[in-house]
């Protein structure tokens, strides 16, 4: 059905066209949201079609299939430098690809009442979508890096223009921080390029020789990449940009930041670093595991101390992304697959949580937990939604995160035996901070610290995106194999580098 159609390029192109139209609306700025929604839905439908057509066990002779990637496209771009336009999808990128189009669409719906500079707001969101989609499909380092940087710009503006009181500080911190990380990434990419000496930026071509690099070189390049991607993930101790950025960012910005931008870090580690530099990964796997475990525990403990609902959710992301890192660090099939799944799961769950923080902020005018209380009485639907979101995030079976957490912990035990008891403590702490926050904000007697006389429940544009996400969280919680069956073959190919798979 999709044979011969450059469907990945189309998916990226649709929001790009949408962005140009949105920017050039002139005085018709109030229609920006309709345009943005139409184009993002277009991209979403196309990505769903791709997911539907995506073959778990593709035949190597199929059109658009090229060495383990599907919907593959390759065009020469700047041939003097060996820069090509190469895109393709495999089981690792597919879930994140669909997650991107989904979260962008839902974020646009959620921002339906944005009054301040709507053209720029919705346009930037579409640009962000282009950037993130590009990162997840690029198979050329140059393209990858360009898209990587493209993502930064709209996010910077979203925080800097539509953000909270300390938006300038947060925006510049976000920009500088992630930029320093990008620099490390750039150096690593350049080092690979010159060390390979193939006069091409193609990831596959470079990976073909980089796996045989001397161990020292591999470790050095891997370390630089690990830093570059780790800041994005974020891992402790390079995480402090995240809470500041989230606290100041508008709700949709937070959803995309936590739901998609953090995934770029995890995706980079597996797609770029681990695929190209097996010996580097092997030598640094303990470091990765330690960083992962520290992030899990430290992030969870920090959550306990937060009084701002959104800041708590932001710190919980650090803890949950630590599971991704820990899963990857096991260098085993179960751990890596679970890590990829955890990225997808966290994307869905954290979007619910940030949206609900936005609802609370919007209705009550504050997110400070001590100011809230008893909201369930007046906002039963919102309370139910936030409860489900919290339960999903704390790893309740039947919801999406459980399978990932269980498998990561299993893989950790299989590899490092008793050390599993360190990250497992965080599972209890996670329950503690979420339930504490629920009790103090939603339950108990109605607060008298804020004016509750006009409290209303969620509006349609807030409720619908969250409801869709909750349905997906439950569906993939009960039937996780829908996703696992896609991820597993791709990870098995990757693991051939590590003597497994």
């Amino acid at each position, binding site marked *: 059905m999709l044979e011969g159609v450059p469907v990945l390029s189309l998916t990226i192109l649709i929001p790009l066209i949408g962005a140009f139209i949105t920017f050039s609306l002139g005085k018709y700025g109030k229609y920006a949201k309709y345009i943005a929604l139409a184009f993002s839905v277009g991209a979403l439908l196309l990505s769903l079609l791709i997911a539907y057509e995506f073959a778990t066990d593709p035949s190597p002779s199929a059109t658009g299939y090229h060495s383990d990637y599907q919907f593959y496209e390759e065009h020469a771009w*700047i041939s*003097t*430098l060996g820069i090509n336009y190469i895109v393709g999808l495999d089981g690792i990128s597919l879930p994140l690809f669909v997650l991107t189009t989904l979260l962008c669409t839902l974020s646009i719906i959620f921002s339906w009442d944005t009054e301040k500079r709507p053209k*720029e707001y919705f346009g930037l969101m579409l640009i962000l979508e282009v950037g993130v989609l590009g990162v997840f499909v690029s198979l050329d380092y*140059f393209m990858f890096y360009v898209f990587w940087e493209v993502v930064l*710009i709209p996010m910077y*503006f979203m925080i*800097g*223009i539509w953000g909270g009181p300390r938006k*300038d500080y947060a*925006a*510049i911190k976000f920009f*500088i*921080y992630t930029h320093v990380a990008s620099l490390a990434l750039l150096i690593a990419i*350049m080092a690979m390029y010159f060390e390979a*000496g193939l006069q091409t930026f193609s990831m596959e071509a470079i990976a073909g020789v980089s796996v045989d690099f001397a161990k020292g070189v591999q470790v050095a390049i891997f370390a630089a990449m690990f830093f570059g991607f780790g800041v994005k993930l974020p891992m402790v*101790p390079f*995480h*402090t940009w995240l809470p500041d950025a989230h606290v100041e960012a508008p709700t949709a910005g937070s959803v995309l930041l936590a739901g998609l931008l953090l995934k770029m870090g995890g995706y980079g580690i597996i797609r770029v670093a681990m695929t190209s530099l097996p010996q580097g990964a092997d030598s640094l796997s303990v470091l990765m595991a330690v960083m992962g475990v520290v992030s899990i525990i*430290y992030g969870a*403990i*920090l*959550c*306990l*101390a*937060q009084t701002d609902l959104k800041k708590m959710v932001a710190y919980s992301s650090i803890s949950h992304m630590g599971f991704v890192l820990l899963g990857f660090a096991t260098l085993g*099939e*179960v751990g890596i*697959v*679970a890590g990829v799944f955890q990225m997808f799961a966290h994307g869905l769950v954290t979007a619910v949580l940030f949206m609900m923080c936005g609802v609370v902020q919007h209705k009550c005018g504050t997110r400070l937990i001590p100011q809230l209380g008893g909201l369930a009485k007046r906002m039963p639907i919102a309370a139910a939604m936030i409860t489900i979101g919290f*339960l999903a995030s704390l790893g*309740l*079976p*039947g919801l999406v995160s*459980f*399978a990932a957490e*269980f*498998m990561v*912990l*299993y893989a950790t*035990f299989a590899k490092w035996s008793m050390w*599993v*008891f360190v990250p*497992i*403590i965080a*599972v*209890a702490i996670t329950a*503690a901070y979420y*339930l*504490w926050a*629920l*009790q103090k904000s*939603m*339950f*108990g007697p*109605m607060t008298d610290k804020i004016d509750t006389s006009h409290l209303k429940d969620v509006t349609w544009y807030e409720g619908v995106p969250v409801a869709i996400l909750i349905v997906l969280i439950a569906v993939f919680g009960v039937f*996780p*194999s829908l996703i696992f069956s896609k991820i*597993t073959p791709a990870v*098995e190919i990757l693991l051939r580098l590590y003597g497994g798979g």
Partner: protein
Amino acid sequence: MLEYAWLIPVFPFVAFLLIALLPKRTLWWESGAVYAIAGTLCSLVLSMLVVWSVLNGETLTTDTPKFKWLEVGDFSLEFGVWIDQLTALMLVVVSIVGTLVVVYSGGYMREEGEGRRRYYAEITLFISVMFGLVISDNYLQMFIFWELVGLCSYLLIGFWYEKPSAASAAKRAFIVTRVGDIMFMAGIIILFKYVGSLDFETLFSESAAVAVPTDMMILATALIFGGAIGKSAQFPLHEWLPDAMEGPTTVSALIHAATMVKAGVYLVARSYPLLIHAPESLLFVAVIGGVTAILAATVALAANDIKRVLAYSTISQLGYMILGLGAGGYLVIYANSPGGYAAATFHLMNHAFFKALLFLCAGSVIHAIGTNDMRLMGGLGKKMKITSLTMLIGALAISGIPPFSGFWSKDEVLAAVWHAGEFDSVFFLLWLMGIVTAFMTAFYMFRMWFMTFAGEPRSEYHAHESPRIMTVPLMILAGLAMTSGFVLFIGDGFKGFMESSIEGLLHGAEHESLVDIAAEIFTDPLTYVSLTLAVVGIMLARKIYLTPGFDRSMFSRGFNGKLQRALENRWYISKFYDDFAVKVVYGLSLIADKFDRYVIDGLVNGFAFLGGNTGNFIRRLQDGNVQRYASLILVGICLLLILVLYILPWGG
């Protein structure tokens, strides 16, 4: 018949979906109670059919139909159904008590208005996942439902969420049981690594037991028991259960007395094929059970809240069952006898009936006069004849007075513990604790009954007997409390029935005839010791709480009142946890927060300060002018391109 057993949890689940999703006006009577009753009745009927098949010797433990949940390489997890005698026992308990409690709720929850929809939705969901738990054929599936029953318990304890105490109790219950759940999860992860499967069929085979190193087997079984410590409220994680009494009394009866808290006991019983390879774990199980039994009984002596008396008594009785299972494991290993195992599971069933009865009677009393405080009751027996009589039956059953059910099973448990003493003398000490507990149980139960129903009213109240919809379930449960002990002597006898579920572990055990069992009970002097103690306990309670003008100040004077204060403060265990949570954990998190803000972020900002001039420059550029940003980006891209196109190629 057994191949349809998977439908048992489906009926209440459908009821849950209907109640949760249907428009308000189609909920009919009592905001959805009809659907709840219909759903639980269907599963009651099906459960009984399944139990009947099991009684006829059918089981479903090999080649069970399976559903693949997920598969990653060699790592694969499947769901299935497992029906044996132990499952059948749990089905009996959950279906009967579940149905009766839902019917009773039709009267008890009448005044809740809108809230009833949430109540019935949550309680049918609970019944559904509880069935799911007991028919699971592997540890992971069990763990999943294990967590889900915990969720329902959380939601129902917090049913009156506007009450700060209820919201707080719900949270505590979830967090404390989660500590146990994590141990359970760690235990199954260990087993999974060594055996490569979590199916009972594989795990319980001899080859699996060999695959696990001895120390790992001890650790894994002890950790799995950790799950039971949390769920069945065993020391030291028992303090959530008395707090859980903040929920509606029906919830206390169903979840916190008859079913969910039994899940831990069920888990230990289910894990017998593993536990017998780790006698160290069995001893641990027995000691925890014995300590819990006596500790909780002491607190019940001084409680004044009628539900808290029952809550501590539940903890204490659960301790009995756990103790019985620990001792039973020793008997299986060293004496090839299923005695302790059968006794503990027997007590599980009997206790479910009489404790649900006691709770529902307490609910009837609370429904009538609107308070939990026994000091404000008294003399209710005249106004509430059915409630007082049925509660008396429950109290006699739990105190171990023949012919009521508690006598048979409690006696069997104590006999098993005594018998296990032959193999490890610790069990003699545990037996002593058990027998003291039996005495205290009789005392506090009748203290409760006398304070509630006998004597003269101690406050102004307008009591009335509860409506028929509430009293009929009471009478049915009272009937069960009187008769369920006799299944010991029906058919093959209860012991013979339960024995077949652990047949594989007993090598050449001879089957005891019913006459032997009866003779053993009535000729054993220990039977008369515990019976005498129970009677003395009841007489003492009567003396102290029924004699007008009896001077009870001796309790507050003894040990300078320290003892009474310690009991009223529940041995300060709850306070210790509060202090630990607030001072240690929360304190640590505050320190971490400061560390994060000033040290880690401080370092980052310090670096930024080093490049201060650059920072200032950038800050001046950042004025919100999008055009300027765009042009800067363009310049940046050009510079980058120049770098990549013309400068870098010479470098390589």
